């Protein structure tokens, strides 16, 4: 009975979405207040029904209701309770339900936190959110209903994929989806502004916090995914350029460009049409990501079910969304372009460089991801694009991005003197060149050109940001100014500062781990000792070990540095009771400056020997630390009081051009 209730709630949500996408929009055209005022309650209603549907599915999982096909496929009575919850989004249907629930959450959040927006604007934004919801609800109901019953009822479920039975992965999809879906808000604002024909600084100011919040979630989601792949897949990599990873990275790149472009639109009124285009791109790339993951057109680490009807549906939806919004853009953008002028040496220019490079990187990732499809469609054969290609592209372009990133924050809007910049930045430049030279020649420590480049660039970022911080404090009256800024409402500068330092931290981590990390495959007999980077790994054999729903062979490795024992690691080779699928559980000794990582391959020979993989991963944690810093920077920027009080000062216009017509 309860699953049917959930199904019914989903259908009602679809009905509401239809009303939501038509009535407020229509009201905004002919100025009928009651129609426009329906927007907010409709958004709340939408969330309510989606939450009911979600709760019904959750109940089915918690009570092991295997009469529901999806539960039978994803869960098992032996599954620990916490994973019964996360199993809800472990498969296609449930993760889609999570997706629409989040869309409902974002819609309600827009309704709740935009009291000061003009009514026509908010009703259009919520109407566009409704249109997106129609697409996804139709998709759920027509091709992937999570409430479908199964008969005869199986006595036991098939169990959650063991790879997904992990705390990291329990939170990774919700975070990622909050990011993906969050860009729908920036998209809705852009489309609403296009419909209204009015793109101004106020529009940019409204969009900025939403975009930043979505970006924070996406950043955390991607970092969590990378961390999960690192310790759970058992092969020690932190990024594979897998199509699914790329699917989350493309919206991130576009979203990062969008955040910066919105800053220019808000402060200077420039880049308007470009900003709109980026908002459309960021959301379209999120949809494309969904298409790639769901349709199974690409081989990947975590491709979901490959049901052609689903792929076709999403492809059609993608075409409608992208085609429709670009058509609207082509029609309305000429009317809204124009804006502040700026000189060649100005903050606008550096942000333009940033935007072009980020867009180029996003396009390259898109091209690399789709190249196998293009080749196959053109009959040029079946190919795969190796990760060295992606690495080369990033190493070629990102230095320019980082150089511009260093200069930008110290540059003035509209016009700046090259001489002033040179006086400010010559010390960081000389010092970073020094680091580059030292690390490249390997005089102080073993290094090469790549190490020099990476460390030189991060030095550049850190020092230029220290300079810009110093300049700001000088203008604000010293450290007192900093505290005042943080207490008052100028936090966004420090948010930007922290996020940029995060980039420097990331570059250090990625550079060091790629150049000084090591990986050894070897065969070890019990009692064997192997030395890596000054650490001795002693293998004490593997013993059987039973978990709640799996059996394992559990190895013991004692690690010594010099004569001192620093840790004992227990990597496991697990096989789950519900299926024959074996799994590698790595043993990791984490550290701020290095990780020691051991995983078991397979038993070899008859003497208790194992194939073993040992990694030394210096500075690898810095990569995820960078994700945390960027997310914190984003939070700081969003908490800037400007976004709350400034809205109150915005005079409430009677609506855009069309509303008057």
């Amino acid at each position, binding site marked *: 009975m309860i699953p049917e209730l959930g199904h019914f709630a989903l259908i009602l949500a679809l009905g509401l979405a239809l009303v939501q996408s038509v009535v407020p929009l229509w009201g905004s055209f002919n100025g009928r207040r009651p129609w426009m005022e329906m927007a907010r309650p409709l958004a709340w209603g939408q969330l309510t029904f989606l939450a009911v549907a979600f709760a019904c599915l959750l109940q089915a999982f918690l009570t092991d209701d295997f009469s529901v096909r999806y539960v039978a496929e994803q869960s098992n009575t032996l599954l620990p309770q916490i994973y019964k919850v996360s199993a809800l989004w472990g498969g296609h249907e449930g993760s889609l339900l999570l997706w629409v629930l989040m869309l409902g959450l974002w819609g309600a959040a827009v309704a709740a936190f935009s009291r000061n927006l003009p009514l026509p604007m908010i009703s259009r934004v919520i109407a566009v959110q409704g249109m997106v919801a129609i697409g996804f609800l139709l998709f759920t109901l027509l091709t992937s209903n999570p409430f479908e019953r199964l008969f005869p009822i199986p006595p036991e479920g098939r169990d959650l994929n063991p790879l997904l039975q992990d705390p990291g992965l329990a939170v990774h999809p919700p975070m990622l989806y909050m990011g993906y879906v969050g860009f729908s808000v920036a998209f809705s604002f852009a489309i609403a502004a296009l419909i209204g024909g009015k793109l101004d600084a106020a529009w940019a100011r409204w969009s900025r916090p939403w975009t930043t919040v979505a970006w924070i979630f996406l950043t955390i989601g991607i970092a969590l995914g990378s961390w999960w792949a690192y310790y759970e897949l058992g*092969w020690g990599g932190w990024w594979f350029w897998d199509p699914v990873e790329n699917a989350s990275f493309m919206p991130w790149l576009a979203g990062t460009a969008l955040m910066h472009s919105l800053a220019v639109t808000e402060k200077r009124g420039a880049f308007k049409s470009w900003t709109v285009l980026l908002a459309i791109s960021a959301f379209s790339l999120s949809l494309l990501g969904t298409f790639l993951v769901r349709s199974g057109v690409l081989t990947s680490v975590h*491709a*979901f079910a490959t049901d052609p009807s689903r792929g076709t549906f999403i492809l059609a939806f993608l075409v409608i969304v992208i085609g429709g919004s670009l058509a609207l853009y082509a029609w309305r953008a000429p009317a809204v372009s124009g804006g502040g002028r700026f000189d060649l040496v100005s903050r606008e220019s550096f942000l333009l460089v940033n935007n072009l490079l980020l867009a180029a990187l996003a396009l390259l990732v898109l091209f690399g991801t789709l190249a196998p499809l293009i080749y196959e469609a053109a009959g040029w054969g079946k190919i795969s694009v190796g*990760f060295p290609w992606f690495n080369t592209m990033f190493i070629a*372009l990102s230095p320019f991005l980082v150089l511009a990133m260093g200069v930008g924050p110290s540059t003035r809007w509209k016009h700046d003197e090259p001489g002033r910049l040179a006086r400010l930045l010559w010390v960081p430049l000389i010092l970073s060149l020094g680091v580059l030279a030292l690390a490249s020649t390997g005089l102080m420590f073993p290094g090469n050109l790549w190490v020099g480049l990476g460390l030189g660039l991060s030095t550049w970022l850190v020092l230029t940001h220290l300079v810009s911080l110093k300049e700001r404090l000088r203008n604000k009256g010293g450290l007192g100014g900093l505290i005042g800024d943080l207490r008052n409402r100028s936090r966004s500068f420090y948010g930007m500062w922290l996020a940029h330092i995060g980039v420097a931290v990331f570059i250090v981590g990625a550079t060091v781990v790629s150049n000084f990390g090591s990986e050894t*495959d070897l*065969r070890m007999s019990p009692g064997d000792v192997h030395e890596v980077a000054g650490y001795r790994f002693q293998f004490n054999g593997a013993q059987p070990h039973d978990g709640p729903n799996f059996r394992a062979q559990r190895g013991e490795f004692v690690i010594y540095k010099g004569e001192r024992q620093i840790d004992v690691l227990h990597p496991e080779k697990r096989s789950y009771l519900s299926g*024959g699928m*074996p*799994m590698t559980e790595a043993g990791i000794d984490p550290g701020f400056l290095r990780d020691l990582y051991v995983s078991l391959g397979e038993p070899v020979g008859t003497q208790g020997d194992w194939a073993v993989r040992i990694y030394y991963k210096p500075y690898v944690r810095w990569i995820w630390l960078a994700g945390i810093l960027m997310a914190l920077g984003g939070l700081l920027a969003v908490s800037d009081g400007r976004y709350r009080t400034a809205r109150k000062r915005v005079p409430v216009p009677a609506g855009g051009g069309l509303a008057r017509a």
Partner: protein
Amino acid sequence: MKARQKRLVLVGLAIVGVGVAAALALKALQSNISYFFSPTQVQAKEAPADHVFRLGGLVSEGTVKRADDGLTVTFDVTDMAETVRVSYTGILPDLFKEGQGAVARGRLGADGVFYAEEVLAKHDEEYMPPEVADTLKTAHAKGMTEAADAARVAEQTGYGSAAGTVAQ
């Protein structure tokens, strides 16, 4: 500079940048793509002798052999029509199994053995890399051998749940 000139400079820089990036990207792509070949194509000498490519098919039953010492392993990959021997040194992925699909990336040696640098295996019981599925379907269409078996395996594609291959 006048506004128009400035805009021209910016647009010009953008075009040059995009052009250079595209040229570099395509050039780099040429050396980084690896083509996929089936055992039948390899035996017909269609695969390049000096270039990295990917070979895929089913791992033949009873052919996986580990060397007595060290980590070298050999196995046969088949598309039900032809078979190629693969040699690999290292740890195989968790889901590598006899009778299941696998894709190996490496070079073909002069001795006809494929020396793999990387072996990918499917990641759940029902999943088959699309290339392998195609390979098997082709062999089936040509009515070569054991077609029924190949078809059974090929039909499994399209119904996987959480699935995939993992780079080592």
